[in-house]
């Protein structure tokens, strides 16, 4: 089984997503998956389409900016677009860490049999710390957002179904949310808790709920 991940890295948002996704790459390798990592300039449309057609990955993880119909790669080049090349995601599980893309692209894809799209129906927003913006893994403000989001992919790689993976992610969002709400000394805690709640409320698992990355539907 193979996993394809895109990790554009052209601004602070994509840099954070790319660095925090290393845990997903490491887990996939550890679990014995063939991992195809389109990082930085490799996360371009030509490379993405070519790899998708050639490798037919079971699990696709898209990090990047997006809107209702599109998920983009490096320098915001559109990689996948509703009604244009959405068929590349058919018969697979996709997790798109991208604003809004579950609202239309995800709905379109998930209408196809044996297809699952996990993503966000509105903006995926998170907090960063100015002083650690160049060292994303040391950013304690970003950690609860990144770890909660990562839980989708990590749970899938451990063999959970798509529905379970999304649920586990939401449980981690809730745990981090409650932890922040209970903080009495952190002036940023309430703000970050609200954003965690927002992201959790807009994460959806569309299409085939029982899909796993281990096997195709029989």
């Amino acid at each position, binding site marked *: 089984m193979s996993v394809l991940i895109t990790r554009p890295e052209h601004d*602070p*948002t994509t840099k954070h997503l790319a660095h925090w996704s290393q845990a997903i790459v490491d887990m996939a390798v550890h679990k014995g998956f063939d991992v195809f990592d389109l990082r930085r300039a490799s996360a371009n449309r030509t490379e993405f389409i070519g790899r998708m057609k050639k490798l037919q990955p079971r699990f696709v993880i898209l990090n990047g900016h997006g809107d209702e119909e599109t998920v983009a790669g490096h320098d915001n080049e559109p990689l996948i677009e509703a009604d244009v090349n959405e068929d590349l995601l058919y018969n697979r599980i996709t997790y798109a860490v991208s604003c809004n893309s579950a609202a239309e692209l995800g709905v379109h894809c998930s209408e196809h049999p044996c297809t699952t799209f996990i993503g966000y129906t509105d903006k995926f927003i998170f*907090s*960063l*710390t*100015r*002083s650690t913006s160049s060292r994303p893994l040391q950013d304690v*403000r970003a950690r609860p957002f990144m770890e909660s989001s990562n839980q989708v992919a990590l749970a899938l790689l451990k063999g959970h179904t798509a529905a379970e993976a999304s649920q586990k992610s939401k449980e981690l969002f809730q745990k981090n949310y409650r932890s922040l709400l209970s903080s009495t000394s952190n002036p*940023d805690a309430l703000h970050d808790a609200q954003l965690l709640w*927002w992201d959790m409320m807009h994460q959806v698992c569309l299409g085939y709920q029982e899909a796993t990355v281990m096997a195709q539907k029989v």
Partner: protein
Amino acid sequence: MNTQPKPLLADEDIRQLVTARLSVLSPETILSFGSEGNFSRDELLEHVKEGDSIGEKIAQIQLEWLRSLKEGLV
């Protein structure tokens, strides 16, 4: 007939509430707002003052969270 919903930040009480909440954030705060960019606390306050789409989204998040609290959803 105009069917556009009234902007949240057109309500002065809401604008003051959102501004007050943002004002207490540490100056280290940066908000990743997707493809629209990353914004500091002071830039967020400016967007709320301007009442643009970013300011409206911040207001929407805060108000929906408050509503969910009231309804016992969180």
